[in-house]
């Protein structure tokens, strides 16, 4: 099921260029959640390049970016794959463009509209169950933000996913621990523990480093049961740019010119 030719080294190179592309775009429009995209970037790259099945160059598996605000990570990966052509990102958030701050269903590579948190899990459960009804052998990869675990609808649907025995559903949580308001363990200490909560809802649950391509790539193979799989991926919000890392102010802020230059230098050196 996985791409045997997947190279960790190439993924690392790609993620450098993805980050640079995102920073470049951040200089043309201010509307962007760059930090949330940086925390999910390695996972999105590995999912598309390493995990999702392809048939005649078209993906047969599905990826949903439930944390719609992190869509810039998905956009740059889709661009690098040639699914979104360059014009789409060049016109990001402009009056001539079609791509905005949240993914819209119907655009190339975008299989559902997301952006309002707590919706992705329901859509994913419905799609994964439909694949079982239609007897289609396909996996559904879902990317949740950790903040979405504060939405009751996410838990309602997690309960349904296990009740429906959706072994074809694989969910990554971008666990960067940081939200718009602040650091989650400070604002909501009882948000934790996560793993026990998830397991008690009938999911198999793993914990990995969400920036380590090797761990991301091998995580899916570690699945031992027929339950839906939840991977808590520990990440750093703003990963790759030191002054953006884990600073709530960067949840929705673009770097100024000087910050942009500094950020590019850091990414080059990493």
């Amino acid at each position: 099921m996985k791409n045997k030719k997947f190279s960790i080294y190439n993924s690392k190179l790609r993620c450098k260029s993805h980050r640079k592309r995102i920073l470049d775009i951040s200089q043309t429009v201010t509307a962007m959640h760059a930090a949330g995209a940086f925390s999910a970037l390695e996972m999105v790259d590995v999912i598309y390049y390493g995990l999702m099945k392809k048939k005649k160059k078209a993906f047969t598996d599905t990826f949903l970016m439930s944390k719609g605000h992190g869509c810039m990570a998905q956009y740059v990966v889709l661009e690098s794959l040639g699914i979104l052509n360059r014009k789409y990102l060049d016109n990001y958030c402009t009056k001539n463009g079609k791509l905005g701050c949240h993914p819209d269903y119907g655009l190339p590579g975008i299989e559902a509209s997301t952006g309002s948190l707590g919706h992705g899990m329901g859509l994913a459960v419905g799609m994964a169950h439909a694949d079982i009804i239609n007897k289609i052998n396909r996996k559904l990869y879902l990317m949740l933000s950790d903040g979405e675990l504060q939405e009751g609808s996410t838990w309602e649907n997690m309960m349904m996913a296990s009740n429906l025995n959706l072994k074809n559903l694989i969910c990554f949580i971008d666990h960067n621990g940081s939200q718009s308001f602040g650091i989650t363990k400070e604002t909501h200490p009882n948000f934790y523990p996560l793993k026990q909560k998830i397991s008690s809802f009938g999911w198999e649950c793993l914990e990995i480093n969400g920036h380590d391509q090797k761990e991301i790539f091998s995580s899916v193979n570690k699945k031992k049961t027929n339950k839906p799989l939840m991977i808590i991926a520990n990440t750093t919000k703003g990963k790759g740019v030191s002054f953006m890392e884990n600073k709530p102010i960067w949840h929705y802020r673009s770097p100024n010119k000087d910050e942009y230059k500094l950020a590019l230098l850091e990414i080059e050196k990493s």
Partner: protein
Amino acid sequence: MRNKLADIIYKKSKKNKKLCVLVADISPAGSMYQFRKKFPNRFINTGVAEQSMIGIAAGMALRGLRPFCYTIATFALYRPFEMIRVDLCYQNLPVTIVGMGTGTIYSTLGGTHLTQEDISVARSIPNMQVIAPCDPSEMEDAVKYCCDKSKSPVYLRIGKAGEKVFVNKKSDKWQFGKIRKIYPGNDLCILTFGPIIKKAFEVKKLLEEKKNISVEVNSCHTLKPFDYYSLKKKFKKFNKILIIEDHSKIGGLASLVKSSAYEYSYKGKIFSFSLKDEFIHCYGNQDDLLDKHDISTSKIFNKLLKNIK
């Protein structure tokens, strides 16, 4: 209506393999039970989790299926409102939300179980279609449309149980998006939707017997998209229009017709009987509740008598 709904979906589902049913902890009696037994994968009970019901249905529709989501109207529409707006309407998916026991039907269950403003809420969402059949016969046509033809989300507003059939040999054929003449007449035009059509026929009978007034009764079953073309024709033909609805005066049939009357410079009279913009804090049978909001056959009749010479 609810049993008939299940019968039709079950019948249709044997040929149409895309049909699925999602319920939120509502008991699967009759044909619903048969459906579940025959197509266990195509029937999902999400439990008391309406947001989940809509979200999952949207996901299934994204994969080409045609789900029906079914529960008591207030929980089918209000509780998962944002899932309906974003997952269904924004993505324009062919999912039918069946709201059962609408308006004041659940008259003993209190305000939590009443849907006084559901049409108004549903109509205001882009891409949403709203159908409210007047009797089981009309519902059959509407459900068949939802099974096979609808291309967008539908809010299907139905009654509960024991509704009488009013459609007769003189009725027009049912057509999605069209005002349907249920019974022809010449002096007064009644516009209504849903099972409250019963009152329209009671008023018609009184007017004809006591005042020799010929009354036309119409079912405006499709509240969105609305048939403005036929409405314009009614404005031309009649100088008196009576609207009866088991729905708030805000955003329902009366507000729709009255705003159109202004646009079309209608010079006739419009009498409307809608629910007030107030919650209902009383119990009893449905007529008791409607009467609290001044909707009763005698009140309608008396008002017309005062105003029609």
